[in-house]
């Protein structure tokens, strides 16, 4: 499963649920990715600005600024606007999905409908197509 190309990729998880973040990061690491973590939107922006990850997994309901605001900030920031963002949230109504996509998210994943391994596979497919 793990290829050399994957090893180089780094994934930033912006997720305030510590348990979910931990499980996801663990799965990403065991699949050969470098991982970066943030538990708030503000922290996420700081980390991406500094470390320039290859892809971002973004939760929507966050303390402080929410995921939609993070997306807007990414869009308006030349340093990071090229980084693909996958929304990973349990907030999943049609209008949220539409709004997320309009704000530049590449995909919208509903956490409850996926296993962590499926999330990691989506990341992999996305990076290999990018």
């Amino acid at each position, binding site marked *: 499963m793990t290829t050399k190309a994957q090893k180089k990729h780094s994934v930033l998880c912006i997720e305030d649920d510590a348990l*979910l973040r931990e499980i996801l990061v663990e799965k990403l690491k065991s699949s050969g990715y470098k991982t970066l973590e943030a538990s708030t939107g503000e922290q996420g922006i700081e980390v991406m600005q500094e470390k320039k990850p290859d892809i971002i997994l973004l939760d929507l309901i966050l303390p402080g600024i929410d995921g939609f605001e993070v997306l807007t900030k990414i869009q308006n920031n030349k340093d990071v606007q090229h980084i693909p963002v996958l929304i990973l949230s349990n907030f999943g109504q049609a209008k949220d999905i539409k709004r997320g996509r309009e704000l530049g998210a590449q995909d919208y994943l509903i956490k409850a409908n996926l296993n962590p*391994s499926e999330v990691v596979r989506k990341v992999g497919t996305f990076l290999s197509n990018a």
Partner: protein
Amino acid sequence: MTTLYAISILGIAIIGLIFQQKRIFALHKKVRKKEEGVEKTSKLLMEKNVELLDQNIRLQKLLEAKEDFIGIASHQLRTPITEIKWSLESILGENKEVKTISGKKIERLKKTHESADKMIRLIEDLLRLVHSEAGYGEYNIEEEHNIEDAIRNIIKTTEKRFAEKNIRVEKEFTFGKECLLIDKETIETTISNFIENAFNYTQDNGLIKIITKKTDGSFYFEVSDNGIGIPAHKQRAIFQKFQRANVAMQMNSGGIGLGLYTAKNIIEHHRGTVGFASEEGKGSRFYFTLPITKKKVETAQPPRTEALARSL
């Protein structure tokens, strides 16, 4: 003589003119009155219009509030279940082949994982129900999809469970590769629901047959089984909300009886038809049809208050 003649003609003409003038005046008066009436009515109509607009805005706000509430509630419901599901996967491993825990305990963890998935499906069902009743169809009918491939994929995910109950699955797919303009997610939900029902209501060593074909220019999908069947007196209400045959209740299949109701809503939204035939103790046959619609053909959307308010 001639002057007298001329004068009398002039006189008649003047009298005629005066009468004409009077008539015109009277007509004017009538028109004015009518105009006043029209003005009054249009003023009233305008007032009513403003009232209606106001009500519409309020109604829309209410719907939005409801929508927001559903969104938040579903998020709150999904989150703890996601924690359970993800934790279980991290313990059991992707293929549920854990080595450090043994025997019965693994089975219990697997069961818990299945229960979490079941719970997630129930939340989806409930959400869809609330949405469809609010007139908010969560449908995205913009792309064409290969429906047979979708069915094959769904069957693949159930194969293991079928094997565990030693249920044989026969496939008779003759529809082919043609793509349909459908909302993939909801149609997949319906297909899963039919297959899931067949699985739940068929005993060990049973037989399930899945058919796709083209009939009368429509796509036809059928799942039949030789399971417990539905008693005759329960058949009339089968597509209604919260209807589940007693026998099914006893088999503890875990649903809350929204599956077929939801399925019917979904198929009818796609302008298709649903139906079934069943005999208690012998089995059931559930089917649906979908019109073969292609891209760029307009599809029916449920009326939206938003659009209504905008058009006023």
